[in-house]
């Protein structure tokens, strides 16, 4: 049974929060007051495009997700808390903003470059937090 995610806290509160549907994630960007482009994360001390100083007033939330650019299977556990095998990918989450994320599918055969992904909350073993996985847009859940 899927736990009530609204009772959990985001593991990375500066990056995302639970969306209104209680399962998807909204990403927290900063919209530069100078060039109007989105930067990620929102608390970066300067716009990633033009270098203009940005502060908390520039924060905007957008539905979390993007376009899958590339992906690979990680065959060894490279960081604590990430079991092997798992899948990592580069995702374009906004124009000229590419972030690496965990792809929550069973194997690479379910993926293809250019496919749309959405970010969902996944409960973590601690029982207190949820993390972020990307799944194919339209998928109901994550496997990892």
């Amino acid at each position, binding site marked *: 049974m899927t736990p009530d995610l609204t009772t959990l806290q985001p593991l990375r509160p*500066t990056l*995302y929060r639970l969306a209104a549907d209680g399962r998807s994630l909204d990403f927290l960007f900063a919209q530069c007051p100078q060039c109007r482009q989105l930067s990620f994360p929102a608390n970066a001390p300067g716009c990633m495009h033009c270098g203009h100083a940005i502060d908390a007033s520039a924060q905007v939330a957008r539905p979390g997700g993007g376009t899958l650019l590339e992906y*690979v299977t*990680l065959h060894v556990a*490279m*960081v604590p808390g990430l079991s092997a095998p798992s899948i*990592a990918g580069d995702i374009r989450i906004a124009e000229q903003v590419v972030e*690496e994320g*965990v792809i929550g599918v069973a194997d690479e055969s379910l993926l293809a470059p250019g496919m749309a992904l959405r970010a969902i909350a996944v409960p973590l073993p601690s029982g207190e937090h949820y993390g972020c996985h990307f799944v194919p847009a339209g998928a109901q859940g994550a496997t990892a």
Partner: protein
Amino acid sequence: MSGGNWLAGNGGVYVVGIGLHPYQFPSDTPYTQLGLTAVRAALADAGLAWKQVQAAYVGTTSIGMAAGRVMLRHLGSTGLAVTQVENASASGSFAFRQACMEVAHGISDVVLAMGVDKHGDGRRAANKDGLERLSDTATIPAVKFALMARSYLREHGGGMESMAKVAVKNHGNAALNPYAQFRKPRTLEQVLASPRVAGDLTVQQCCPRGEGAAAVLLVSGQALARLGLDPARCVRVHASAASSERDETRYGEGPIDLVRDSARAALEQAGIGATELDLLELHDAFSVEELLYSEAVGVCQPGEGAAYLERGDSRIGGRCAINASGGLIGMGHPLGPTGIGQVAEIVRQIRGEAEGRQHPAARWGMAHMIGLGSVAIAHVLGGTARC
């Protein structure tokens, strides 16, 4: 030599002595012992005494504050200037560049550039910038390069074998290098059958963790005769170019643009074309990098990296020997020493002293490094003081 080349100052900059402590797996050997072995070897190679060295630049990433002074005092407290340089994988390369500047600008005539490192805890500034990341793997180079490798193979239609052959060549070169961490040749079957790490990269296509030291002595052209040095063993530095990451507008092209720009700047400074290079030591921490960067440097055409390797053009005795030392995959990548070790290999080859792995008629060589995929540096060396 172009007239505007700052490296022409003070009669030019020459590498007159080289020395290494073999790269090895992490051990209890103190870094002082690693480093002093390399420096003493460089002094002996040059025929210089420690008291003649006026300044030292020490590249290191993981030892700690003021490692240079703590180590070098055992050679005698001569009062020389000591500067520690850290720039990730390129730390030694940047120490070398600083030493070149000091000589070329006439501040000193005899300068030591060295790298020494122990395997550290991997603490990185990128993990301390106060910013969270969607994935904890985002700052792990193996993942980044596995993603680049997948894109390369997807775009060029090559199989995993095409990049595994980089490891076969470089392990083979390393087997001939007494300073290399790995001394065993590997077959294609062995490379492909070794455990997978990330994506299509197997463990034998990834550089090992390790420690070691490398040292070179730089002398101004003005001082060569006064110091009684053998001009046939003094190899000239013709170019030093450094850069950092630009805004990435094309996905995946950032590191490649970085290599291309820094290599092009160095070649222009040296006044030669990429295809004139006889030797190229480059950052092959992961096998796919050699394919990507051989194209970016320009020794082969874009998209031809795998074919260049397949034809044998990058082997010792080919058109341009790439990573004749064994590269990071075979010789090892102890970080601080790596860039200095590249320079030492090129000097050894240009002198004609690379016994067992000598590239014939080697005249021009480039040492190219990147640091954490975001800083790049290229040096071009060529000819001796007798030429």
